Each structure stands twice: as C-alpha cells, then as structure tokens.
C-alpha cells in the first residue's frame, strides 16, 4: 500500500476529529488486541501441561509476550477514548469481541483444573496459522495511516519472528514424523480450514479501513496470508476455506468464548489490582 493522498495521523487527538476514521481505526485495533488476548489465554491454559519441560518454558514465554502485545493494543484504544486496558481485556461481553472465532476454540475436552485432556495437534496447527497471519497483518499495518498503530506494529514484529519460528519447527517436525502425528495434524488442518475464514475479514468497517489507508483490503490480506502459510504447508491454500461459525470480526462467537471469559473474569474479579 502506497501512502498517497491520505495524510498521516500522528496522534489520538487528531484521529478523534473524524468520527468515521476513529470508528474504523478502533475496530481494527480491537481485532488485533482481541486476537492476541484470546490466543494467549488459550496458551496460558497449557501451563504445566506442555509435552516437555523445555516446551513449557518456551510456550509460557511466548504466551506472556503475546499478552504484552495485546496490552499494547488495548493501550492504544485507551488513548482513543475507550475504557482502560484492564477493563477492555476482562470486562467486555463476547458479542463485542472482535477476535476470529477459531482462536477461541477450547484446547480440547476437559477442564484445566480437573482432567485437562488437551490436544497438542490443535495447538500446533492453531498457533502456526495464527503467527503466520499475525505477521502479514502487522506487516501491512506498519504502513497504516495511524502512526501510533504503525509504530506498535513495527515493535511487535521485532519480537514475533521467534513465535512464528517456534511453531514452524513444531509443525514441520510432527508433520514429518509418525503417520499418527501426520494424520492428527491433517485432521486439525482440515478443521481449521472449515472455521478460520473470518480471520482475514475486516468486519463492518472494512471499506473505511481501506479508504483511509489504515489497512490493505481483505482480498490482499487473504492472498498474503495463504502465501505465507504455503511456505510451510504447500497444500493448504488449495483447501476451501470456510467460516462455519460466522464472523468474529462482526461479533459472532461460540460458547467457547464465554467459557474462556468466565474463567478469566473469575481470576480477574478475585484480584482486580493484580498486575498482568
């Protein structure tokens, strides 16, 4: 995306002057924040349960870092007049959340404190697809007309290659190991393809986002993402991609998100002043 006629918006004060611009901008940031937030919540549920101790350390480190990214995006929203970051993360109802639906999916059957029967194949596939997507979306956003957002995207992109590299290694190693591992990943990939179609959508304000050069178009985003995925999984782009549960970008969600929010708010209510 070339910076053309549109002027750069350097501050929250300036963004607030045009309500149409402001609403499109806020919606875009909510998508980024909510994606990072829910994926790191699902990650945090794995604490102590990962396949081995080194993975436990690595995964929790990635999760903590991703939560830090969510916080930076919520802070940007706060500057734009939204409630404070803590409230945005913990107190919003599911129908105003903008994360893609696939990312809220439970880690598996069972419950963290009881019998956590979680599926590692789902986690590897999901995180791999997430990090490839995050990379291309943020790359586009470094050229966004809203300077503070472009700056944060640039900062996140300096740290994120480690996350992507981590899940790429997991995916490749399992995909080329036993038949069982291969089949389980394949099944999870197929499942992902049926559900993840809202990920590259931009929601109700898609047209304005493109018009104001906040973001590239959905079509281009989709194309770049599939291209990035195909560097690791050649066959993925040829699979039909659907959105079985609707569009999280438009506020559609599954009961899995409510389940996550209930757990989150329990922890949050019990200790509101905790630093996270």
């Amino acid at each position, binding site marked *: 995306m070339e910076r053309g006629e549109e002027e750069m918006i350097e501050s929250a004060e300036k963004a607030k002057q045009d309500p149409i611009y402001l609403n499109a901008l806020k919606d875009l940031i909510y998508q980024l924040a909510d994606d990072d937030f829910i994926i790191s919540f699902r990650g945090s549920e794995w604490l102590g349960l990962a396949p081995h101790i*080194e993975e436990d*350390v*690595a*995964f929790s*480190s*990635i999760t*903590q*870092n*991703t*939560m*830090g*990214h969510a*916080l*930076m995006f919520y*802070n940007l929203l706060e500057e734009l007049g939204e409630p404070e970051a803590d409230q945005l993360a913990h107190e919003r109802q599911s129908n105003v959340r903008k994360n893609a639906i696939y990312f809220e999916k439970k880690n598996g059957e069972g419950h963290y404190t009881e019998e956590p029967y979680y599926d590692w194949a789902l986690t590897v596939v999901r995180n791999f697809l997430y990090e490839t997507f995050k990379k291309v979306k943020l*790359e586009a956003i*470094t050229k966004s007309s809203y300077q*503070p957002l472009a*700056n*944060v995207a*640039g*900062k*996140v*992109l*300096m*740290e994120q*290659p*480690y996350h*992507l*590299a*981590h899940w790429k290694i997991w995916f490749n190693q399992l995909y080329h190991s036993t038949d069982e591992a291969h089949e389980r990943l394949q099944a999870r990939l197929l499942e992902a393809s049926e559900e993840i179609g809202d990920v590259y959508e931009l929601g109700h304000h898609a047209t304005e986002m493109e018009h104001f050069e906040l973001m590239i178009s959905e079509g281009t985003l989709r194309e770049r993402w599939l291209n990035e995925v195909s560097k690791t999984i050649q066959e993925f782009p040829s699979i039909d991609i659907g959105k079985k549960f609707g569009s999280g970008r438009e506020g559609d969600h599954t009961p899995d998100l409510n389940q996550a929010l209930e757990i989150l708010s329990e922890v949050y209510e019990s200790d509101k002043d905790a*630093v996270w």
Partner: protein
Amino acid sequence: MQEQRLQEVRAVLKTVDDPELPSVSVSDLGMVHDVKIIGSQVYITMVPTFAGCPALDFIQRDVQKAVTELSWVSECEVQFTFQEKWSTDAITDEGKKQLKKHGIAPPPENYQPGNEWTVACPYCDSDFTSMENVFGPTACRSILYCTTCKNPFEAMKPVVDYVY
C-alpha cells in the same frame, strides 16, 4: 545548572538495574529514551525491552525512587513509550561487558530476523555452542550449551528492526 542536573540524573540511571538482569543498568540496556528537567521536576521516558516483560512496573518504581533521592528533585515521573522501538543494538559496550561477567552472553551482531543464531560462550569464549531453547526463563533470553567447557549458559535474544 540545568546541564549539571541532567548529568546527575543520567548518573543515577546508571545505578538502577533491570531486576531480570541484575548488574546491568537500565541505562546500559538502552532503555532510557529521554530525560526532561523542569525546575525540580524530572520526566523520564523509557523504552521497554520485550513487550511481555513483567518487570516494567518494578523498573518504573526503582527509577522513580532512585531519582527522587537526589536532593533537588521534588518529583519524578517515569513513563514507558511503546512508540519507540528498542533493539538489542541499543545495549552499550559497558552493558555487554556486565552481561558477560554474569554469565549471560550479549546478543549476536548482524542478526537477521527469523534466522537461527548462536553466540560465543561467556565463560570460555568458545564458538562451539548450540541452542538448547530459544525461549529461556524470560522472553528476552535464550538457553545455549557450550560444547567446550560443557556449561549451559543464557544469552540475550537478538531483537532488531524488522526488514520486509
């Protein structure tokens, strides 16, 4: 007088350590972006290292406390900005020296994002090292192993401006 006060604040910042990297000051880590002095009030803008760094609140508190101990300071405000990009290139030579002294290898130079990397062993300087875990106990560190002296050691992860 202004110049002298600025230098005093800068000197204090060289004494405040990152709680996760004891013995390396926030100043030598390149976390201090800007210092402004208005009369007896000091305003410090800092750049966080990793976004998920849980130590930010402690650093903020420690810096504030240390600067307020200067006799002429009535108030010190410390803010983190996410608008500036910290990179491991911002670590000073003194910072690198201190890291090494405490068994943490400084980040490699000329690193390309996404690529694999290793660094020389901080204990014996051997290049025969291998990556054990890219993610160490905190997001900013990795765990490596030295084949020569058989020690595991930590290294700061290179974080550089992303080129695309």
